[in-house]
């Protein structure tokens, strides 16, 4: 037995042998290593940019920028575009684009305001009607994209105008005044409430924005529905062959995005105070900006929704920092333009990663 076991003792010599598995020669330069890390974690780029820009503006613009008050103010300022960017992310992940997000939002805000302020309908009911209206508007986009087989860009270019026209017709291009909302339906301003902690001022709208992102992140990453969104966005035909009912999938994505826009509508009343049919005219482009800076691929199927949150915050940090550093508005616009181009360039570079 002992002799037997000694002769069979391969294990002891194993430690001395070469225990490498067959592999390709590793010739990664440090830059390639970074490229690999970023490829695996697409949200890392916007997070780094956000932290670096906060640090830089903190140095340049000083304490006024780097105070809890100002940092939370930036969150308030981006909260509405942030929620719209969450809706936009859903559509872009499915390889579409939605030019109508801001138009849906403003229309639903006007509807809720008109119902409660002019017709005296209780605010919670108006809000429910607006939320349903948002989902219906999204559903309309979804049906046009899937059943009428129109490209998302064209569909939403059309519905953008349609919703904008309806908004102007309903509102008569007149704002609903803040004080009228206070008397008739203060509930519409719910998300304008503030929690103060030290110098920080967190509005309910900011909390709502974070919640929207957390819930959608969970849905996209931890549910079958979410995996299907990525699959459809990556390759619709392959997804269909794999048994995903892609049309139903897309319709649900557009309807959900519409619902999120209506949530943004409610939040926007708290943020702006009044209901302005003229506000957020470029909200659709600003939401796309946030998504792109957040490292989400415009070709669909790639990127994390949290990137859009960071993208929106980066824009807010740049605007606030440049403003406090005394830079003219013109150059703020200029800077945001470069941010978009650099973000997409970095995204393209990361996608070139080999093996």
């Amino acid at each position, binding site marked *: 037995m002992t002799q037997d076991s000694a002769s069979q003792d391969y294990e002891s010599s194993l430690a001395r042998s070469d225990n490498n598995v067959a592999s390709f020669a590793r010739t990664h330069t440090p830059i390639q290593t970074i490229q690999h890390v970023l490829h695996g974690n697409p949200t890392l780029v916007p997070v780094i940019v956000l932290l670096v820009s906060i640090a830089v503006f903190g140095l340049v613009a000083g304490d006024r920028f780097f105070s809890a008050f100002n940092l939370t*103010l930036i969150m308030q300022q981006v909260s509405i575009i942030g929620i719209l960017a969450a809706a936009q992310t859903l559509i872009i992940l499915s390889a579409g684009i939605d030019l109508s997000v801001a138009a849906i939002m403003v229309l639903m805000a006007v509807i809720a305001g008109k119902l409660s302020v002019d017709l005296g309908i209780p605010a919670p009911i108006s809000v429910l009607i607006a939320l349903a209206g948002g989902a219906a508007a999204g559903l309309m986009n979804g049906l046009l994209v899937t059943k009428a087989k129109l490209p998302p860009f064209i569909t939403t270019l059309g519905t953008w105008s349609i919703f904008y026209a309806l908004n102007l017709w309903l509102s008569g*291009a007149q704002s609903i005044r*803040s004080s009228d909302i206070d008397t008739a339906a203060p509930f519409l301003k719910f998300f304008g409430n503030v929690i103060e902690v030290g110098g920080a001022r967190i509005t309910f709208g900011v909390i709502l924005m974070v919640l929207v992102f957390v819930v959608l992140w969970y849905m996209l990453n931890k549910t079958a529905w979410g995996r299907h969104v990525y699959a459809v966005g990556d390759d619709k035909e392959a997804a269909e062959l794999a048994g995903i009912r892609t049309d139903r999938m897309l319709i649900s994505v557009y309807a959900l995005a519409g619902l999120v826009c209506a949530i943004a509508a409610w939040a*926007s009343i708290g*943020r*702006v105070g009044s209901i302005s049919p003229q506000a957020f005219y470029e909200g659709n482009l600003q939401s796309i900006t946030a998504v792109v800076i957040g490292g989400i691929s415009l070709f669909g199927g790639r990127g994390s929704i949290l990137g859009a949150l960071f993208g929106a915050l980066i824009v807010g940090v740049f605007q*606030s920092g440049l403003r406090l550093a005394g830079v003219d508005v*013109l150059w703020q616009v200029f800077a945001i333009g470069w941010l978009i181009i650099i973000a997409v360039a970095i995204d393209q570079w990361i996608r070139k990663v080999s093996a």
Partner: protein
Amino acid sequence: MTRITALTGVSALALALGAGAASAQEDVLACLITKTDTNPFFVKMKEGASEAANELGVELNTYAGKLDGDVETQVAAVESCIAAGASGILITPSDSRALVPVIEQAKEAGILVIALDTPFEPSDAAHATFATDNFRAGELIGQWAAATVEDPENAKIALLDLSAAEVSVDYLRDQGFLTGFGIDVKDPTDIGDEDDERIVGHDVTQGNEQGGRQAMENLLQVDPGINVVYTINEPAAAGAHEALSSFGLADQATIVSVDGGCPGVEDVKAGVIGATSMQFPLKMASLGIDAIVQYAEDGTVPQPSDGLDFFNTGVTLVTDQPVDGIDSITSDEALEQCWG
């Protein structure tokens, strides 16, 4: 044989054209081209033009851009009016310079061109301009603010302008306000070249509530002691008030504005806006139709007001805290004349 037919054809055509021209002179055609047909200001303008046109038996064609800055639609509208043989065009140019060439064409075609509200650059590109004296509108609220604020020598002023493009209405109101307040504006066509220490800063609002709120927040971050706020229009003023309220500073600052829209006048009544300068879009348009009829009858071209390069359609200060030496009307009186 063929030649005769051809000639007959031509003369028949000439006759038809002659007849057409004759009948067009009998019933005057006027065109109204606005920046948009959604802004209540232009809605009121259209209303004024329609009423005057009905009264005088003038045919009126109206056109509007899709949004402010929509030059293409306005160019096409001017071309349509030339083709239709209009006697006169009333236009609020979306771009003061870009529309000049097509306006030259209209003038060459013998059409009277009147700029409403927004002058061309150069302003003599049109035969006449019927407009609010926007500099005066700013000056009135500037004078009122200087007389109302406790210590104007140590005021802290925020200026909430329209857009980064600095169009004429933007700098005229802004610089008018500063002049009225007693501040040296340096170049009166340039916003932001002043070096008076009382100015905390300028920011842009796009003329709506959301922009007004954000701009006010930004400037309060620069200096939380702001106590005088100039705003380009009343929606921007409403947004500024929201920002001040959320910072708990609503009582510290006096907001002034320009326009005279009904929601703005309501805000004067509610104490949100201290004073606003009211303008009269309805009057601009009805005077414009009168001028076109006059021109069609005897070729009279309207003349500018004394000392100005445009015809001043008037501006009135609206406030519930009147100041000695500055004429004003109360918000209740203004509610009867407001537009929108």
